[in-house]
């Protein structure tokens, strides 16, 4: 078992006829992920790599192929439109890989999400993977193996770091979720932790955060009150100067808000084991979970 994605997932790829999307969609398909359609407006009726029918709209992909999950590789100026189209078509889960979507567009998307039953992961994220079953996005699948640890992170490469550390120590993962580095995202740390907590097959959780916003503090509060499973965490950006965007649009310390120190303090106050360095993420969990 796992959360959000698995054997019943039927993926439509939006914008996978571009080079970057194609590369990763093909890797996902090779891994065994059930892609059922592609959507590229204007290319409807064609085939994607002789594997999938291409449609002009997400609605057509849902109607004809029963797609229930969408992965979006659409360029930033058009990505919000792509997300809104998928919401309108009744897609249950959207994974948006695109980096660089304007905040204003995401404010509109967030509003539409609240009025729908759709869940969005990302944007500006590496995607979601249930090892052995399904990989949607750009995570390297070879670093993962099926298991019982749920991993959630705002950062792509730090996710890989944690997953790889677990795998080489013999521990697999139930699901790995990259929730993305933007200031507005669809799924929060708290959402992911809640799902892992409710998933009977997930026994322990790794949560990786970074400077900016207060999502980690909110998750800490949730964990303190609700989660009995062992949780380890790491927060990146202790040395980041205030007022500067550290690569990710959302990674910025604004005034007194969003600093790594306050996040680490909140996590520790909630009884969460916080890794002192990014090299110790798996070991920190394995001290409290075996």
């Amino acid at each position, binding site marked *: 078992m796992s959360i959000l994605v698995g054997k019943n997932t039927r993926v439509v790829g939006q914008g996978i006829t571009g080079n970057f999307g194609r590369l*990763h969609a093909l890797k996902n398909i090779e891994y065994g992920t059930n892609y059922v359609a592609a959507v590229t407006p204007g290319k409807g009726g064609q085939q994607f790599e002789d594997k999938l029918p291409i449609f002009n709209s997400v609605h057509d992909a849902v109607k004809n192929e029963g797609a229930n999950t969408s992965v979006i590789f659409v360029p*930033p*100026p058009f990505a919000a439109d792509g997300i809104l189209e998928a919401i309108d078509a009744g897609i249950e889960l959207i994974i948006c890989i695109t980096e*660089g*979507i*304007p*905040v*204003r*567009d*995401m*404010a*509109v998307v*967030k*509003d539409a999400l609240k009025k729908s039953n759709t869940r969005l992961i990302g944007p500006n994220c*590496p995607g979601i993977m249930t090892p052995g079953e399904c990989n949607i996005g*750009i*995570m*390297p699948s*070879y*670093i993962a193996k099926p298991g019982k640890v749920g991993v959630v*992170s*705002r*950062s*792509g*490469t*730090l996710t*890989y*770091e944690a997953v*790889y550390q677990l795998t080489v120590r013999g521990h697999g993962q139930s699901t790995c979720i990259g929730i993305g*580095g933007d*200031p*507005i995202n669809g799924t929060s740390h708290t959402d992911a932790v809640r799902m892992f907590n409710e998933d009977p097959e997930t026994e322990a959780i790794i949560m990786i955060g*970074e*400077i*900016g*916003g*207060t999502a980690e503090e*909110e998750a800490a509060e949730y964990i303190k009150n609700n989660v009995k499973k062992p949780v380890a965490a*790491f927060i*990146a*950006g*202790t*040395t*980041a100067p205030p007022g*500067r*965007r*550290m*690569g*990710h*649009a*959302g*990674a910025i310390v604004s*005034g*007194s808000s969003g600093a*790594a120190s306050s996040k680490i303090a909140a996590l520790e106050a909630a009884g969460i084991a916080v890794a*002192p*360095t*990014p*090299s*110790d993420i798996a070991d920190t969990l394995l001290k409290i979970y075996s």
Partner: protein
Amino acid sequence: MNIHEFQAKQLFADYGIPTVKGVAARSTDAFDDAIASIQSELIVVKSQIHAGGRGKGTFKDGYKGGVKVCKTKEEAKEAATRMLGNTLVTHQTGPEGREVKTVYFNEACSIKKEYYLAITLDRATSKAVIIASTEGGVDIETVAEETPEKIIKIFIDPATGIMPFHKRTIGFGLGLSDKESFKQLSKLLDGLYRFYWEKDASMVEINPLITTDEGALIALDAKVGFDSNALFRNPDILALRDLDEEDPKEIEAGKHGLSYIALDGNIACLVNGAGLAMATMDIIKHFGGSPANFLDVGGGASEAAVTEAFKIILSDPNVEGILVNIFGGIMSCKVIANGIVGAAKNVDINVPLVVRLEGNEVEEGKEILKNSNLPITPADDLSDAAKKVVEEVANKA
């Protein structure tokens, strides 16, 4: 992306937000004409840099105050002459300060009361938040900390935009609820929100917003930042970018699709992924070193981009060691290895170089580095790499 106060006020004018008359000058030749156009008795002379705290700042030559209220035209010219080309240090610039390349002359006006008004994104609700306070002209963070009851926060639904009830809440909260004041406030709030929304601002701040003795509501200062991800659809805003306010290394990095931020340490790092790049800085510090930069080469960085990354890192004279940390998820370690070898051919890497490669095609990557006969210290994992680079730099010193 940030802009100067004088640019922000020009944009404010387009949105019907009242400001005092002001003229910007970039050279001493332009001072006389600029000063002549100011009608008020007092003249306010303001240094234009992308940092707050200008009024309380000090110039490197000891001249105090980046904002001056002058009684005569001569005094204004004298103040402007002292400011232009001088380096202003404020609590926001860091000790290196910023060179003043533009001086802004403003008409003075009477101040009856100062207020604070800003719009920014509230990340917790994913909505725009209007922040208003009767405590204007002071540091709003301090107000929020010490007297949070004096901060009014109004969250705006993106579907409706700003509504009359929002404006009434702010009007009553600020004591600007009489008919004439509220009329002005209402128009100003409409303009400010429309500006925030249409121009993809990340923050607009008026501190202080003032009422004059005559009852006029005026934005006396203006601080505006924009969402860099939305500049593609705001070419008029992009045209206001002042490259003089940015680190040349950061500008160069941007041209090559690299994300670089200069810091004040001596150990440079070159990493793929923003989170891992931050974590690499942190681990250098953890083992007693000091990071010289943040540098994310991204997921799809080419060999050429990696070479450029090395050039940028090495153009920082403080750099005494380099840590390359690559988790090749998407990116093949071969690309990085070839980039390092290529860079070494073009750039003289004369400081210790520790490389940690992991992930996609790692063995091939390590092999390329080994066969290059470059003086590279390989590392097993990130801790090992950080320890080694800190040690090598310490040994060399």
